[in-house]
């Protein structure tokens, strides 16, 4: 799926106050590309992702998938488009009272008919079950398949969210801070898993990250968002310290905090 965003602005009205989350952002992502999005918290990354997965409408500008604007699609077409875009949310957003297996099966919802949905409440089809079991195996949760999602640890929930996306078999994977709450070793594991999944299916992969080194290590293209604007869009081998200084300029302290935390994790193997 080829993505293109043109001159997008997004305003939120909270009470009577107007907050501008994104302003004048343009971006083109050809099918199969892997892309990392950098930016401090509040830079507009989550808003960008919600625009990309067709759950948010831009205030101005357009979001197109394969040249077709989300804004002119019918409800059914939108659903079709959403089916082709898998999202791994920052808070995982699993259904807490369902088991891992059932949460994984949720990935099929976009392609199930009404009758299949009704049937699946009691018992889903054999092929779907097989696929779900396989997806759980891929992320290493086979032994947890009967545990409820809210009984899993943070890292396990993260992997379960990936299993749900695998089940969805999307053309695009959007991952919003998929390693936010994980230690370094687990973060590496998750990112490489995502990259592997992306390359295997020739899927577009867009990942928002806090950690600069991981972005530069795994992704050929990196963009920087700051205060709702596009700061840079560069091949990762040309991203230099001064570009990052510029991006995190106003939030240098936070960048330093994150780096400190990374070092802490590297040295002590756990988060603070």
């Amino acid at each position, binding site marked *: 799926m080829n993505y293109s965003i043109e001159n997008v602005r997004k305003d*939120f009205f909270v009470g009577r106050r107007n907050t501008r989350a994104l302003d004048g952002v343009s971006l083109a992502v050809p099918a199969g590309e892997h892309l990392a999005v950098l930016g401090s918290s509040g830079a507009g990354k989550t808003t960008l992702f919600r625009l990309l*997965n*067709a*759950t*948010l*409408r831009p205030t101005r500008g357009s979001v197109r998938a394969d040249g077709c604007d*989300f*804004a002119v*699609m019918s*409800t059914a077409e*939108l*659903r*079709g*488009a*959403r*089916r082709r*875009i*898998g*999202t791994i*949310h920052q*808070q995982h*957003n*699993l*259904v*807490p*009272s*369902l*088991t891992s*297996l*059932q949460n994984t099966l*949720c*990935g099929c*919802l*976009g*392609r*199930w008919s*009404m009758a299949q*949905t*009704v049937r699946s*409440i*009691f*018992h*889903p089809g*054999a092929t779907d*079950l097989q696929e779900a079991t396989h997806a759980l195996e891929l992320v290493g949760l086979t032994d947890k*398949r*009967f*545990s*409820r999602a809210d*009984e899993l640890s943070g890292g396990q929930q993260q992997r379960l969210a990936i299993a*749900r996306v695998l089940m*969805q078999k*999307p053309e695009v994977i959007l991952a919003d801070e998929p390693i936010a709450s994980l230690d370094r070793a687990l973060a590496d594991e998750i990112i490489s898993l995502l990259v592997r999944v992306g390359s295997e299916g020739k899927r577009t992969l867009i990942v928002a990250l806090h950690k600069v080194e991981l972005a530069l290590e795994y992704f050929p293209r990196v963009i920087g968002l700051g205060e709702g604007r596009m700061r840079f869009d560069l091949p990762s081998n040309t991203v230099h310290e001064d570009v990052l200084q510029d991006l995190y300029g106003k939030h240098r302290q936070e960048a330093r905090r994150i780096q400190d935390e990374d070092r802490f994790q590297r040295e002590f193997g756990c988060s603070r």
Partner: protein
Amino acid sequence: MKTVSNANSAALDSELFLSGRVWTPRRGAALVTAVLVLVICWQIDGVRLSTVFQRSTAGALSTLLRGLFPPDLSFGFLRIVSRALLSTLATGIAGTFLSVLIAIPLAALSTPILWRSGILVAADEGNLGSTLRAAASRAVLAFLGFLRAIPDLVWGLLFVTAVGLGSLAGTLALAVSYAGVLGRVYADAFADVDPRPLEALLTIGATRGQIFLRGIWPQARPTVTAYTLYSFECCVRAASVLGFVGAGGIGYEISLSMRLFEYGQAMTLILAFVLLLASTDAVSRRLRRSLQPNAGQAENPRLLQRNSARHGSFKPALRRARYVVAAAVLTSSFYFAGFTREHFSDAHVLGNMVRFCSRMFPPDFAKGFVLGLGPLVLQTLAISILGTIIGIAIGGLLAIPATSSLLLAQPDSPDVRSVSKRGLRWSIFWSSRLALNVLRSIPDLVWVLICIVVIGIGPFAGTLAIGLHTAGVLGKLYAETLEEVPRQPVEALRALGAEPFQVLAWGLWPQAKRMLASYTIVRWETNLRVSAILGLVGGGGLGQAIYNNIQLGFYARLGTLLLVIYGLVMLSDWIGDTLFRRSVAT
């Protein structure tokens, strides 16, 4: 312990899930039981669908509907309506006040931490005085249970018999039955307090009374006020219905006009009643907010500021004014509720009540009479079960379109942009909400009268009435519960292409089912109480026997009937607690 059993049952379910067998012995047995219960209830209730689809039914319905419009708005009648409204409101206020007065000491006497267990009694545990005190406090708790178990309408009937027709009987009935409810809630609130301050007070050398006043009461007060205001709303609702047994207020006028086939007047009265309920709801919500100034406003600095200004600078004068207003409202309420001097001196209320109560003892346990009650008990159970099932079905169907997160497009989402489609969804949403509100705000006894007009007297009318009222109550609760489910998982499902029905089945239902089940069970327990009294107006069940025996003056039999109702309610509590809630909890 709990997580272990959780994990086990989840694993069990999942094995089932994987095995691919839709029909397991357990599910089969559950289905067979359900069908059996349904068929038995159906038989006992004498449900004949043919009566529903008869031409005469349609005729009666159309006569009724044509009669309801236009409502009677003539001046003379409006004066009657306003007098009835006033006495209903006065009954509600006076009843709440009296029930609080009775409930607080009883609750204090039944609070376990003061009398039965914990640090306060640890020192003198085992000696005779302490054992006696513990037994007494248990007895008070059981007494509260008894007050609660007898439906308020039965209390109304008893007081009408004891002190005569009118609001006075209604007020006393409310006072007694809500004392049971409030006493239990207060006792729970008292039991929930932090025990450490109490221990500190004990070591200082405080007496039990001082510990209660300085340790328990301040901690429990917010819960107590909130629930008292909530029960005020319930009391006004109950006060309006008590008129059906002659205890004054607007219910009396409604039943009168229905019986005289003056449907236009009934419509006016029902509208007035709904208006009264809406305004008491609003007033009590406002009171609740002003008594707890910070609740729900933490994130609104302007409101907070305004409140603190109000509580700060105007405090003493405003407070005094409030006390004066409250005292005036209370006094006039008692006056309009029939607490006048001549009423008390003439009727010898207290003497009458004592004489009446003493005639119920000993209850009549003659074999023929008790055995004769069997079918009525079964009928009462059947009415409550079938009525609840009807309520679940209709309420559930209406709740789905009344859930805004399912039907209305999410703000800011790219879905459904065309104005006509939005308008259509919007109107479906609001009309289902309206239907639920209408079903809910018409009291179950009024529904009985309406159903009797349409399909004739008998248990089926009662069942249908309970079903319709329950549909409104449960439907609204269902919709609210579904809306309050954590939003993020639901958003995630929507983002991966799920349709509304799929969002319901895989996102909302798994998260909400426990709450939905527990609301339904609580409602069934309430419905059992209601179905025990439907007979008072011709809806089948035990109520008919109560009415007859009061009319005939067989008070010993009345005593037996009260015991039977108490037993039934205890049984429903037990079924709800042990069978359902436990299975729902895992």
